[in-house]
């Protein structure tokens, strides 16, 4: 039983510590995305990405979340996503696309370190993100 409580205490402490670290990245992303949303650049971005996002059955705004996720991480994607309001189906599709390809700079570095070819991994993940995005986008339109 002592082991159990020790694990809960260490876990809770680690959670708070990691949370503080992540907030330093998430809050600036969130603030920037809200600024971007109301800036004159946004309609232009929306229209520019609308054809690509249509592939995934997503509105043009979703590009901001997907691109943020690609370069930062899932937490960045969530921060960017919460700047807009999406339907449950769209959130699920954005989540799946981002989950296939996220934090490319960091995870590629980790991959390289343990010996995976980083270049191929990026191509593979981006390709799968598109494939899965089309599939889940279609599924979301049918089921959710």
């Amino acid at each position, binding site marked *: 039983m002592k082991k159990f409580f020790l694990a809960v205490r260490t876990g809770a402490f680690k959670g708070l510590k990691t949370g503080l670290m992540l907030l330093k990245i998430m809050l600036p992303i969130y603030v920037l995305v809200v600024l971007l949303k109301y800036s004159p650049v946004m309609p232009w971005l929306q229209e520019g990405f609308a054809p690509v996002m249509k592939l995934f059955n997503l509105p043009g705004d979703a590009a901001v979340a997907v691109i943020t996720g690609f370069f930062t991480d899932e937490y960045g994607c969530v921060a960017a996503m919460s700047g807009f309001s999406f339907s449950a189906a769209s959130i699920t599709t954005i*989540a*799946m696309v981002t989950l296939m390809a996220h934090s490319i700079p960091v995870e590629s570095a980790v991959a390289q370190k343990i010996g995976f070819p980083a270049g191929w991994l990026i191509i593979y993940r981006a390709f799968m993100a598109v494939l899965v995005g089309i599939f889940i986008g279609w599924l979301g339109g049918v089921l959710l």
Partner: protein
Amino acid sequence: MSESWSYIFYEMYTGCFTTILNLLKVLVPLMIIIELLIQYDVLEKLSRKLEFLGRPMGISKDAIFPLLVGVVMGVTYGAGTIMELNQRKPLSKRDFALIGVFMYLCHGVIETGFLFGINGANVFVVVVVRLLIAFFITCIAARLPYFQKMEH
């Protein structure tokens, strides 16, 4: 700017609070679960039960444990386990490559399940469908000549 500044600042202010709360709702339970999994060697026991999954995915039973760690707890934990194993008894080239194929599509399912679940995604799709996608892709990859040729 298409809205007044006071409106934008108000939105940022409330949004930041929700972000902080949602993040803690994810991370505190997640870290507690991970700590419990480590303390009670859950994944080591579970990996022995899941050995049968190695055959369709073309990996040996030694590779199940590091893969499971990566898939359940996250890439950093998975990479750490692989490095630790390599010091004792290195994984075969093919096991290693196929772990990569699976793990880079689907890792940290507890973390991402919580994170996207709390933010409104369908948890079943984010966890189960993703696991299935990664599983089938690995099964297909194991049958490609590129992976077949590797030593195992």
